[in-house]
């Protein structure tokens, strides 16, 4: 029971550290109550028509989305499709390539080496795994 309480305390402490570190790194971020003129957190548009990423309104000449890269609010933005379709998702391809693929590769190699090393001999307990 003591171990479990300790584990719970460690878990909550890690969550608290992550939150504190995040707010320290991005001081402007934080939870706020939604008001009538609250801007969209992603693109800063304060149009009352938007109810989420799936309902991004067309430019109306009054409330405009602001490109987070260039700060431009032109309706002629050539990256409009990206702004409406992709800016709520980070690129998955590079994360797959740099994190998932090396992990799968190392894991696969480790399994191969372990299987070929077994050949009748049992693996040493308390080893790398």
């Amino acid at each position, binding site marked *: 029971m003591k171990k479990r309480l*300790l*584990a719970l305390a460690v878990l909550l402490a*890690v*969550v608290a550290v*992550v939150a504190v570190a995040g707010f320290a790194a991005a001081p402007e971020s934080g939870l706020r109550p939604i008001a009538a003129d609250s801007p969209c957190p992603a693109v800063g548009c304060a149009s009352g028509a938007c109810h*989420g990423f799936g309902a991004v309104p067309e430019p109306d000449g009054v409330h405009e989305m602001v490109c987070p890269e260039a700060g431009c609010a032109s309706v002629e933005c050539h990256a409009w499709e990206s702004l409406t379709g992709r800016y709520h998702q980070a690129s998955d391809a590079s994360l797959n390539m740099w994190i998932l693929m090396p992990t799968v590769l190392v894991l696969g190699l480790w399994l191969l080496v372990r299987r070929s090393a077994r050949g009748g001999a049992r693996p040493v307990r308390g080893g790398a795994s």
Partner: protein
Amino acid sequence: MNRGRVAFDLAVLAGYLVAANPALTGIPAHEYVGLVAVVVMAAHMVASADGLLAFRRGRWGRAALNGILLAALATCAVSGVMVSGDVLPALGLYAAGYHFWDPLHALSAKVLLAALLVHVVLRAPMAWAWMRRGALEARSSQKGEGTVLEDDRFEVG
């Protein structure tokens, strides 16, 4: 460790797999299921408290992996709340700093997936052995025999 525990762990894994695929579930379901999945995974971590103390048995690799899992889950959960477009508005709130928290959420989710893959591969033999043991015991008790078990993979934590 018993079959009930193995079943719970498998349910935790299933919950994670549902929560970690917003392309299939859609964002609103991803947010709500994700919240439940975080709580369930935290329960799994607390129930498996020995894993966090693996370094005391000299298993530094296992302790490091568990630490990465813990940090990735915590980061994914906190950042997920900060980019929430359904749960927070349902509470009348929104969060600024989207372009800081969203990349962090994507990165921590990918690290969590990679670490979970390693964790599942390392733990699968034990879970399989426990499930097999349960099946062996059930078969033996049906035949009225005693069960002699030679499988020594029943480690805890």
